[in-house]
């Protein structure tokens, strides 16, 4: 099967994000960048599916030439080839979904796998928009029943179950109060939740090999997509700071403070 996966470039989740004094953007100096953690889980799942069912994994990223770093990372993990949509301006989820729709039209994958959200804008929308644009079924927040420390996980078997005839995929979804299982006819769009798998590290031979794997360059113009953002961020601000707390020496003081000062008990 052919699987299209995304690799968005985002700020390292461990980095401290600060807002510029004028509220126009975040302070970018000194930040580290990596592949969106949910996308990395998507790449891993695609690799596991292809290891079991055969086929290829095509990774796509949208952005300036720096996103080639994230594409190379996915290629080093084992993706077959990459598509780079070269675009340097601001994008919103409608623009991204429209571009991915065109890439999917070109590539005709059996499955598109994206992260459920990117950890910068936290929108959690692109997969759903894309599924509607393509007229395909969607399975968001794909998870699995076993924990990340289970034997099944160690054996690196895919958590998404493709039917024997290759016509559908069964997905366990993480929802409120439990796990829902649905089955989508292929082609379909799946978005990954955290506990779908533990992504592999790129090996040294993998990194070497990735250097010679092809990256195809496209642009919004070539794909015929108008990416003028409809979601416009007018202003950014830091969240209100919490009042500094205190350390208490023992349980008795804690209970006293909770009761008499915070009135929380």
């Amino acid at each position, binding site marked *: 099967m052919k699987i299209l996966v995304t690799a968005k470039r985002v700020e390292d989740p461990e980095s401290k994000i600060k807002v510029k004094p004028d509220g126009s953007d975040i302070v970018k100096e000194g930040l580290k960048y990596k592949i969106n953690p949910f996308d990395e889980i998507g790449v891993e799942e695609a690799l596991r599916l292809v290891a079991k069912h055969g086929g290829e994994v095509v990774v796509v990223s949208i952005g300036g030439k720096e996103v080639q770093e994230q594409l190379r990372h996915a290629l080093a993990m084992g993706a077959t080839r990459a598509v780079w949509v070269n675009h340097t301006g601001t994008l919103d989820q*409608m623009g991204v979904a429209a571009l991915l729709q065109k890439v999917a039209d070109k590539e005709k994958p059996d499955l598109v796998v994206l992260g459920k959200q990117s950890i910068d804008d936290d929108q959690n929308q692109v997969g759903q928009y894309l599924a509607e644009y393509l007229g395909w079924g969607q399975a*968001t927040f794909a998870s699995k029943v076993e924990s*990340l420390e289970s034997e099944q996980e160690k054996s690196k078997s895919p958590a998404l179950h493709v039917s024997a005839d290759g016509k559908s995929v069964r997905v366990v979804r993480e929802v409120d109060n439990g796990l829902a299982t649905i089955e989508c006819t292929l082609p379909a769009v799946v978005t990954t939740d955290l506990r779908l798998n533990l992504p592999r590290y790129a090996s040294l031979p993998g990194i070497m090999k990735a250097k010679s794997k092809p990256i195809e360059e496209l642009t919004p113009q070539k794909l015929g997509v108008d990416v003028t953002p409809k979601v416009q961020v007018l202003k950014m601000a*830091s*969240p209100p700071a919490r009042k500094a707390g205190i350390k208490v020496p023992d*349980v008795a003081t804690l209970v006293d403070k909770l009761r008499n000062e915070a009135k929380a008990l």
Partner: protein
Amino acid sequence: MSIVLIVAEQQPDGHLRKATLNAVGAGKQLADKAGAELHLVLLSKDPSKVTEELKGLGAKVVHTATAPEFEHYLAETYAPAIAELAKSLNASFVGAASTAQGKDLLPRVAARLQAAMATDVMGFGGSGADIVFQRPMWAGNVFAEVKLATPVKVFTLRATEFPAAAGGQGAAEVKTFSPKVEGGKTKFVDFKEVKSARPELTEARVVVSGGRGTKGDFKEIEALADELNAAVGASRAVCDAGWVPNDLQIGQTGKVVAPQLYIAAGISGAIQHLAGMKSSKTIVAINKDPEAPIFQVADYGLVEDLFKVLPALREAVHKAK
């Protein structure tokens, strides 16, 4: 008059999801600011259990549609029906609570309406047609003001930021509609519910949460929770390890809670966890490591072994009752 349409959510047991009440509360705020009428919509196999409740929440109209296909929620069958109604009403705003269903459904509705969307909205600014949406980005480290430059604006609402709409506010007109039922590419297989006798995590007044420091032993967390009639939460690490069910996870990628009292035991306080509980009224941290980042947001911190503190705390609370 423009219309704010809020999508109501029915739980598998037939009851209304509580977050819907907060979404209706938010819908009211928005309708006031935008000079619009508030409408609600419910798709259901059997809406009888909740229509009465929805009628009394202060909306002008409650729209309901029934079809066997609506028994189990699927984005592919729900989205076209909601979009069809929004179009026929010429609604300017379509929203729902930021539940798993809201987040799955609304972007698909938005795509169908060629509408831009904001997720996890915490407040509204501006007025009339120039409404702006306040929402968190970068795991709650940034609050952004966002404009949606499409005629229809779609959003999900962070329930903890809005008051729940109260019942008994007159009777809305109930209108039924019969959308064309689409779909067929996705089918429901099953749902495994995690049942708990404790209060629901996102609605509890008190939450007791455990992290790596529990080493997977949640007995003391649960015992304290029961003493306080609290919900039990967890950090990502303990969910990943399979020590507790995933739906207990609090954080950027799990649930967002804002209880009166949040007790974090053995949780270091990674950015992603703080994103899910920073708005709690009072935060207590119990951790052996005095340098743990959780102490930076805690109102009261206790540097001590949680296995010593939790039983003592439980006893002290019990005695004081």
